[in-house]
Structure formats: structure tokens, C-alpha cells
């Protein structure tokens, strides 16, 4: 058994693809039509293209409890998904220049430095640098 991927709920797959590739820098891996509304759409890290895939899953559009859960997480400021980075400050500066909005600026707590941003399709995302 292997961990091949994780899914993230998105409100708009095309908008999500643009944000995760053009702003965050991920690379599109799979794009398979499922039905008229949905695609099996995954992205990977450019540094680990054979690594785990992030599935941009349009589940909040079809499954009301998922939408309620996603909205509650957003309102509470909770990032359900996080990505590792080498340098949080540099990534923060880069993303701010691209217009990404942060709810938590780079902050040190314990053995990590982290920041939280809005991915514009329903999620708070945390970036983390281990100290």
C-alpha cells in the first residue's frame, strides 16, 4: 500500500488549476474527463514529479456536507492542507507579489516557521518550514 495522493476540495476546478500551477508553481499531472462537470485533475510538485499527487476535487459542488465543512474551516481560519517549503519568508514574499492573500504572516512557533494563505477556491493553505 502506498500514499499516491491526497485530495483538496475546490469550488472551481479550472480556477483551482490556474492558482495551483500559475501562483503556487505546481505542474499538472493528470487531467481525465469524468462527466460534463468534473475532471480527475491532479498536480504535482516540480521537485517531486513522481511523488504524491494533489487531486483538485470538486466535491463541495456535489456534496452539501463537504461544502458546509469547507466553509466552516475557512471561517475558523483552519488550514486543512499544508505544504513544506525551504524558506517561508521567501515564499511569502513571492506569493504576495503575485497577489496571494495571507491570513497569517510568517510566524515562528516551536520548531517551525509557517504562514497561511487563501487559495481563492475555498481553502486556507499553510506553508511550513522546519527549523
Amino acid at each position, binding site marked *: 500500500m502506498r500514499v499516491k495522493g491526497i485530495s483538496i476540495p475546490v469550488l472551481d476546478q479550472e480556477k483551482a488549476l490556474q492558482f495551483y500551477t500559475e501562483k503556487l508553481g505546481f505542474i499538472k499531472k493528470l487531467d481525465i474527463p469524468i462527466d460534463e462537470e468534473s475532471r480527475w485533475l491532479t498536480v504535482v510538485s516540480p521537485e517531486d514529479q513522481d511523488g504524491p499527487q494533489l487531486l483538485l476535487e470538486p466535491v463541495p459542488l456535489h456534496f452539501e456536507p463537504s461544502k458546509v465543512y469547507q466553509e466552516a474551516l475557512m471561517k475558523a481560519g483552519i488550514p486543512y492542507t499544508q505544504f513544506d517549503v525551504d524558506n517561508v519568508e521567501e515564499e511569502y514574499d513571492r506569493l504576495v507579489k503575485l497577489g496571494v492573500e495571507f491570513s497569517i504572516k510568517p*510566524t515562528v512557533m*516551536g*520548531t517551525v516557521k509557517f504562514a497561511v494563505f487563501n487559495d481563492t477556491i475555498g481553502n486556507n493553505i499553510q506553508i511550513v518550514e522546519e527549523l
Partner: protein
Amino acid sequence: MNYYETQLERLSKTTFGNQWQLDTVIGIRNYINNNYDQDLNLDLLSQIRYVSKYHLLRLFKRYYGQTPKQYLTDKRIEMAKNHLKNGMSVTETCFAVGFESLGSFSTLFKKKVAMTPQEFCKEQLSRSIESNE
């Protein structure tokens, strides 16, 4: 302040309130990152931060979730994978990341990566051929 920020503020005072402990484990981790190719052991690491080795072991595991030795092994394997991807030979890689014998390197590599260093090299080679086609 939203719920997440409230929880972070609480944790920073409770779970992460001891700055001396944090400085100690962060210092040890940095030392391992910069010296993973050397002969490191718990005695040496504890002398660097003037802390008993048992206390260091406990602290490191508490904050990083693994022992210094486990962290060192992971670091060496990660660096070994980078070297092998860049075309370094298995023997050179073994010594470049601080292992003293090819046998222990190969055994640990297989345990962590699920293939031998030689198999890993072959896979990298076939991938680079595929991507060039």
C-alpha cells in the same frame, strides 16, 4: 482573531513555551544538517549543547517526533538519493553521506527506499531516458 489564531496563541504558551528547550533541539537539528557526513553520535551532540544525552534524546523526540539517530539516518538517505540522481557512484555516495560501510548503507537504503542503491540508479537512468524521448 479567528479560532485557528486563538489555538495557536494558546499552544505557543503551553506546548511551545520553553525557549531553551526549543533552542537546544533546533541547534542540534541544524548541527546534524550541517554535519550529517561526519561520525555523529549522541555523546557528541549532547556536548555541543551542554545537555545530558538522555535529556537530549527525550527533548529531540518530543519536538521532532523521532530520535536524533532516526533523523540523521533520514537525512543521509535523502542526501544519498540526491547524489545518486546526480550520477554519483554508489560507493562514493555511501561515504559522502557519512556511512562507514557499503553493507550498512545498502541495507538502510533498501529499508527506507524499498530498493537497493543500484536499483535506484537504474530507475533514475530509465526515467531520464524516458523524459528525453
